[in-house]
């Protein structure tokens, strides 16, 4: 397509930026100016002459048989160009991230509330909406299978997917399961070794990524019979891998370009509108844009798995952990999505950053008729952290120990072993993170003489003028893996080009990395500057013309694609120096690139890059693979399963109106080891953002599902923290290099989301004395035991 017809397309061309900052500095974002001017083209801004608007008909029922679909009336609506059902799909009808169990459009049955059944393309969104209402679907409504008990008793309640349809080793509505046993496991003999045992049942509600930029994109049919898709996603290549078979096209004819992404947090790991827009474009021969409205966004992407967990911990009287016995049940909903990986994380990280001699763990993900759940920041680890950190507080109370001290008695350090048998072979300063969190100065007490309601629980709602307010403090620490695990080779590719433009050496970095806001593009430019000694760096738009960059998830992009940019830049550097040696016969062994010149440490500048390059460009592509991992043994959970571990500790200070059950988080401190902060400003931004999502899960965020139906698919009732809910978030960063990682860095994005939630709940417990075994904590949880 001609770029001219897309408006505001500046980020779909190269973005150039000059700066002196290499790694360790905090240069401004290369896309920052476009973003503040409103010129950065997000996927929902895509626009093409003659484009049509696509929309989907979605099921109002969580479980039903589709008896018939009649599209004839919809087709008659003036302005409608196509109405499609699964029968119109040219290729494979199923797709999926790990297991291809999800139909692109429902086939004869629906398995969750909001499942897409039919598609419409029309000349205006309103025309499309009207047409959707004219599609007649006859359903035989079935009782949804929604609770753990129902799922685990298919004999009585039935199957979400008939067992003969299973495309993995699922069985009996269990999509995936992982067991783990380490030490002696947990037997009666092991239990007898403990002086105290605490146990608890914990529940985590269904959280949503709630990125602000709705799922959207523009599919443009191409003359070669292929398709160009401009889309917001986390992983261009895995989208294409899932799309091509459905569209019945070879992968090279499905070309994806990353449009601006308005946040992701795991919610764009799966396909949403990609296949639908392309199907409509294929059928109509016209460009088709789909933009989800907020309600459709809630139906159209996976959520964080809700969890029910049983934990039992035993310890000696002096506070040494003896065993942990855990069972984690994750509700994966209708389709598999990332459930297997979520289970793997829950099982392998579910004991926390502690050394526990004997562990037994059983984690499962269910198939149910609830909304599908999959990737969200910190998956598997977030749910478990609420369980094990609640247990640590309980144990400390039982033993009469300070909760931080109890943790420090048991925290893991470099050289220790995970219950999976994997040795921690890089710094793990867990006890130190906790110490630092504790030593940070506390915020001042509430100034009752000068109350400003905006600082109190309830704020402008004017519920308290100081009455009922009790302060609480809580601590927690968490562990997360970085990168894809269990034998998966999630390599990244980068292309770096060095040439002279306008009399200056300019490096161009081209990857397929999805910039979702995290600042990967800033870091890529910094790496190129550091390795190549240039100031001018151009970021090429991310697309499928270059090899895969893997997903922008699992805290992996700086590590993986940053690592690939480093490798490619180093290769370019070697090639340039080699060129110089050939031309000038240098014999120095201390040559590097700096300040636009080839430099010898001892002899000084040898030649300028401009002179050496002339009008030649050096253009090289490299892949970066992390060290290999292996799958966990299904029964014992043993194996070198994770690439890297990352840790964060938090302290939360809250004011609770104990009479009304309202909470105001006063401060949320985070201390994290990041190995090496390539861009300190971005690192702090990631940690503060991650903490805030954790705050949301602690006190307000939940998709409420009753009998399989979503009750709050809107920003009116799915609440995320506002600026009045979010406290100051002081961040302390440690930089202890990981010898296995590029520059020694450690993935940053997820650890705070894992660790911060339990600290807030601990602080509320500290203020109220209540048990609080479920998150999000709601006002009624804090007041049910109170007299009216």
């Amino acid at each position, binding site marked *: 397509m001609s770029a001219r017809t897309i408006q505001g397309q500046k980020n779909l061309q190269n973005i150039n930026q000059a700066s002196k900052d290499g790694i360790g500095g905090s240069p401004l974002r290369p896309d920052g100016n476009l973003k503040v001017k409103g010129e950065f083209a997000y996927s929902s801004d895509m626009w093409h002459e003659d484009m049509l608007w696509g929309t989907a008909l979605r099921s109002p029922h969580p479980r039903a048989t589709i008896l018939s679909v009649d599209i004839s009336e919809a087709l008659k609506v003036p302005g409608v160009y196509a109405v499609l059902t699964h029968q119109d799909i040219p290729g494979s009808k199923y797709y999926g991230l790990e297991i291809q169990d999800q139909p692109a459009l429902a086939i004869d049955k629906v398995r969750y509330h909001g499942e897409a059944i039919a598609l419409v393309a029309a000349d205006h969104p309103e025309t499309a909406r009207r047409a959707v209402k004219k599609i007649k679907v006859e359903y035989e409504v079935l009782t949804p299978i929604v609770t753990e008990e129902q799922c685990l008793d298919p004999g009585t309640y039935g199957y979400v997917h008939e067992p003969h349809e299973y495309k993995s080793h699922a069985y009996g509505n269990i999509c995936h399961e992982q067991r783990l046993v380490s030490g002696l496991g947990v037997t009666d003999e092991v239990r007898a070794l403990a002086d105290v045992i605490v146990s608890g049942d914990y529940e985590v509600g269904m959280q949503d990524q709630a990125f602000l930029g709705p799922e959207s994109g523009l599919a443009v049919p191409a003359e070669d019979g292929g398709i160009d898709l401009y889309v917001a996603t986390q992983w261009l290549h895995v989208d294409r891998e899932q799309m091509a078979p459905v569209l019945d096209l070879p992968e090279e004819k499905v070309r994806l370009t990353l449009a601006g992404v308005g946040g992701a947090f795991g919610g764009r790991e799966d396909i949403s509108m990609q296949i639908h827009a392309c199907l409509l474009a294929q059928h109509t021969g016209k460009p088709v844009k789909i933009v989800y409205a907020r309600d459709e966004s809630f139906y159209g992407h996976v959520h964080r798995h809700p969890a029910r967990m049983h934990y039992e911990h035993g310890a000696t009287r002096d506070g040494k952990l003896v065993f942990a016995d855990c069972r984690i049940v994750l509700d994966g909903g209708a389709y598999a999505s990332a459930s297997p990986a979520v289970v793997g994380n829950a099982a392998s990280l579910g004991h926390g950053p502690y050394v526990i001699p004997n562990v037994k763990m059983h984690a499962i993900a269910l198939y149910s008729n609830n909304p599908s759940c999959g990737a969200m920041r910190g998956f598997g680890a977030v749910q478990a952290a609420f369980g094990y950190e609640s247990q640590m507080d309980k144990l400390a109370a039982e033993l009469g120990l300070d909760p931080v001290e109890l943790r420090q008695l048991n925290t893991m350090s470099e050289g220790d072993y995970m219950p999976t048998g994997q040795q921690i072979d890089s710094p793990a300063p867990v006890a130190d993170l906790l110490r630092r969190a504790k030593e940070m100065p506390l915020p001042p007490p509430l100034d009752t003489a000068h109350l400003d309601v905006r600082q109190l629980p309830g704020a402008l709602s004017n519920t*308290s003028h100081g009455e009922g307010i009790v302060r609480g403090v809580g601590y927690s620490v968490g562990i997360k893996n970085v990168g894809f695990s269990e034998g998966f080779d999630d390599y990244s590719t980068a292309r770096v080009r060095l040439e002279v433009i306008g009399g200056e050496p300019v490096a161009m970095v081209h990857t397929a990395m999805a910039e979702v806001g995290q600042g990967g593009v800033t870091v890529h430019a910094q790496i190129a500057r550091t390795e190549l000694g240039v100031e001018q760096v151009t970021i090429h738009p991310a697309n499928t013309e270059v090899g895969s960059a893997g997903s922008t998830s699992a805290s992996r992009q700086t590590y993986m694609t940053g690592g690939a940019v480093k490798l490619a830049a180093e290769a370019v550097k070697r090639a340039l120096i080699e060129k110089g040696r050939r031309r000038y016969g240098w014999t120095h062994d201390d040559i590097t690139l700096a300040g636009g010149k080839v430099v010898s440490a001892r002899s000084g500048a040898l030649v300028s890059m401009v002179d050496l390059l002339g009008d030649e460009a050096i253009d090289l592509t490299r892949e970066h693979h992390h060290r290999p991992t292996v799958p966990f043994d299904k029964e014992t959970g043993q194996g070198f399963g994770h690439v890297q571990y990352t840790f964060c500790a938090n302290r939360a200070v809250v004011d609770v109106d104990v009479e*009304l059950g309202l909470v105001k988080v006063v401060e949320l401190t985070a201390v994290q080891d990041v190995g090496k902060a390539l861009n300190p400003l971005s690192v702090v931004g990631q940690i503060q953002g991650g903490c805030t999502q954790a705050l949301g899960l602690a*006190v307000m965020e939940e998709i409420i599902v009753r009998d399989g139906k979503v009750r709050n698919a809107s920003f009116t009732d799915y609440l995320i923290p*506002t600026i009045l809910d979010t406290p100051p978030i002081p961040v302390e960063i440690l930089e202890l290099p990981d010898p296995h990682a590029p520059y020694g860095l450690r993935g940053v994005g997820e650890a705070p989301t894992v660790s911060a939630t339990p600290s807030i709940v601990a602080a509320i417990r500290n203020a109220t004395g209540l048990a609080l075994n479920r998150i999000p904590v*709601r006002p*009624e949880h804090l007041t049910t035991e109170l007299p009216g």
Partner: protein
Amino acid sequence: MEFLRPATWDEALAAKAEYPTALPIAGGTDVMVEMNFDVHRPSAILDLNRITELTQWSNDGGVVRLGASVPYARIIDELSGPLPGLALAAHTVGSPQIRNRGGVGGNLGAASPAGDSHPALLAAGRDVFVEAASVRGTRLIPIDDFYVGVKRNSLAADELIRAVHIPVADGPQQFSKIGTRNAMVIAVCAFGFALHPKDGTVGTGIGSAAPTPRRAVEAEEYLRGVLAERGLWESGDLLGTEVIQRFGELVKAAASPIDDVRGTADYRRHALAVMARRTLTWTWNDYSKQIRSAA
């Protein structure tokens, strides 16, 4: 769908008479949500933005006549003195952007049990009137007769709200609302309270805890009695925990809430009692201060 843009109030009334199913739009903060999410497809939209008198208010010293479209932001800035309860309620509505557009006319038009103006208007007393007009003429609807069901009010199909008549406060007023976040929340439940020393009454209003906004009649009566019998209006003496407690109980008893995604019925009752006690305490403290400083 048609889009009607009357330039004057008379044109608006004529349009509404001609198209009784036309949906008036003022700030649009309710209407447009319903349009965007396909909840509503009226035959016509009747834009009231061009009618300037709807955005004006006047105060004759005893009563404020508040134009239907005066946005909340201006109520907060300009009317906190004469209408303190309503101004506090206005300050809890949505966000600054919403408060720049939405107003009491729209809140009354939507008649949601969760509308925040309602408890404040009820608490302001029984002499609050909705000025409704049509080509047939103008009538003043007492606020107690205005709310007739869930999201239903007593306007006739051809009527528009011109203004609301609210007595100028003659004593302290308060408003509290529960939300599960610290800004931008629809009320889980809300409570408005006002002391009316001039006629020795008190006013209450309960939001989001019954099919319609409602008054806690028994609580008002109880307190009126206690204040009169004990000469508290004159003395400004402490009410005592027993009275405050009882008042809270009666407010709670006046509610008939349900469980929904925003909260449970039990919590709503509990919170209403707490808010009733607190708002009574705050207003009474202010009142006694006034009495003492006057003495």
